[in-house]
């Protein structure tokens, strides 16, 4: 078998590693640049007002000049999202283990989980502000944690139920205790699923922590900054904060995606 597949018949210089991965990286970058150019041109030529849509250059300049403020907001919102992600993930994983081990718990939790999955969790923010006080970040972190809990719980539980019959027989033949079987077979097998849930949850954590700021609480986060910049008609600044939120979301996503790849490295099923 040759090292490269038959479909790649490029010249020896560009064959193999470089041609495929290079195109995968350059194509989206090129598209992004084209879109930004078109945007800039459209704003200038059509004379679009900044309160409708600021130009990319305008936003970029604003982002650079108020970087300290955007960074401070990113730290506040990022911390809330991270605490929420951690809290929601840990409770989600523990609850999934409990549901997988104890059937009654699973049956009891179905309606609660269904209810939690359908309520718009950020809608709880005002209630939580009253509960924990509007001058602390607790409410926002809880909103993020609640949003994280559902996908982590559901995915982990699904993963915990993927145990192959041959592995179950093996554990019985080894007279392994339920905890030993969970630790050596069920949990590692569920890892790729858990991290898929975590990847989905990571974006939700950032979005929820940010949206929760719209409903009150202390100032300083990205969400509050976006609304106050928009309220004072500083639209390029508002967009600079939006850019900050996008970057924050990307970081969360990329890190959890990396963990997911790492966890599913050797998870392909074997005969």
């Amino acid at each position, binding site marked *: 078998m040759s090292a490269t597949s038959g479909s790649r018949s490029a010249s020896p210089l560009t064959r193999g590693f470089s041609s495929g991965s290079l195109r995968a990286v350059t194509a989206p970058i090129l598209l992004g640049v084209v879109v930004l150019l078109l945007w800039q041109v459209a704003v200038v030529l059509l004379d679009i007002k900044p309160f409708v849509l600021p130009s990319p250059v305008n936003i970029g300049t604003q982002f650079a000049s108020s970087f300290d403020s955007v960074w401070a907001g990113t730290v506040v919102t990022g911390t809330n999202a991270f605490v929420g992600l951690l809290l929601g993930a840990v409770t989600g994983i523990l609850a999934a283990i409990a549901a997988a081990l104890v059937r009654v718990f699973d049956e009891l939790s179905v309606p609660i989980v269904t209810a939690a999955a359908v309520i718009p969790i950020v809608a709880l923010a005002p209630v939580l502000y009253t509960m924990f006080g509007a001058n602390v970040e607790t409410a926002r972190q809880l909103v993020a944690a609640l949003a994280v809990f559902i996908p982590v719980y559901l995915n982990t539980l699904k993963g915990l139920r993927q145990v192959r019959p*041959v*592995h179950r*027989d093996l554990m*019985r*033949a*080894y007279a392994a205790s339920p905890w030993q079987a969970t630790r*050596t077979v069920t949990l590692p097998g569920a890892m790729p699923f858990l991290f898929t849930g975590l990847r989905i949850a990571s974006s939700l954590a950032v979005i929820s922590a940010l949206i929760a700021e719209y409903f009150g609480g202390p100032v300083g986060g990205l969400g509050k900054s976006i609304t106050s910049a928009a309220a004072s008609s500083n639209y390029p600044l508002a967009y600079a904060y939006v850019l900050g939120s996008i970057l924050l979301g990307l970081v969360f996503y990329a890190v959890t995606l990396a963990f997911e790849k790492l966890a599913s490295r050797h*998870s392909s*099923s*074997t005969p």
Partner: protein
Amino acid sequence: MNAVEVTGVSKVFRVAKGAEVVALDSVSLSVVPGEFVSLIGPSGCGKSTLLRLIADLDQPTAGEVLVFGKSARQARIDQDYGIAFQQAGLLPWRTVTGNIELPLELHGVGKAARRARAQDLLALVGLSDFADRYPDQLSGGMQQRVAIARSLAESPELLLMDEPFGALDEMTRERMQTELVRICAETGAAVVFVTHSIPEAVYLSSRVVVMSPRPGRIQEVVTVGLGSAGTRDDALREDAAFFASVKAVREALHGDAVHEKAPHSVRGVETR
């Protein structure tokens, strides 16, 4: 004391709407220590069920299963047997060494002792160069060899094998059979081996138990006089005595079919 003593064992599976399937009907079988016994028969004759009962993965509806004079359950708890299935069943997130160490780890063997034992077993199955690979980096035959090494980890006096070579190609299969014969000669363990293949059963066994389906019964026990495990090699596959035994097992399987006037009931048995 026999390695396995099965007395009047029946197994009835309840399927949908109260219907019952008799997988085994008063089966009795003894396996003496160090003996290699194959269970062969068409699909649905209960050979795998019988193996699962000995391993205490299922419980008999009636009758008694004794392993080294203890109940099957006690023998399982005491880890008196090693087991291998048709699927290698390796844990994909563990290395080859990690997989072989698994039973030792579960039963509290120390790290250094585990490592040493895994190294010995890898040498035994000829995979020393693959100790740190992951299962998805191995061929099917290599994975199955790891599974066999794992089943030998605790030096069991009894090996239970459920079509361990069933998913392998013929070439790999014959090589694995030769290896298994050698390993059995070295370890002196008794083996209960489920298979679909008559030549495989004859080549490996001192006795071949021919079973018939619906309900699962022992049709005949063919004694194969091909010498001890240590003296068996590839030349045996072309020996006249080998063919005579293959013929005897085949006739035992087909005799039943003629008797029942249902030749298709032997489907699933390879007569190659």
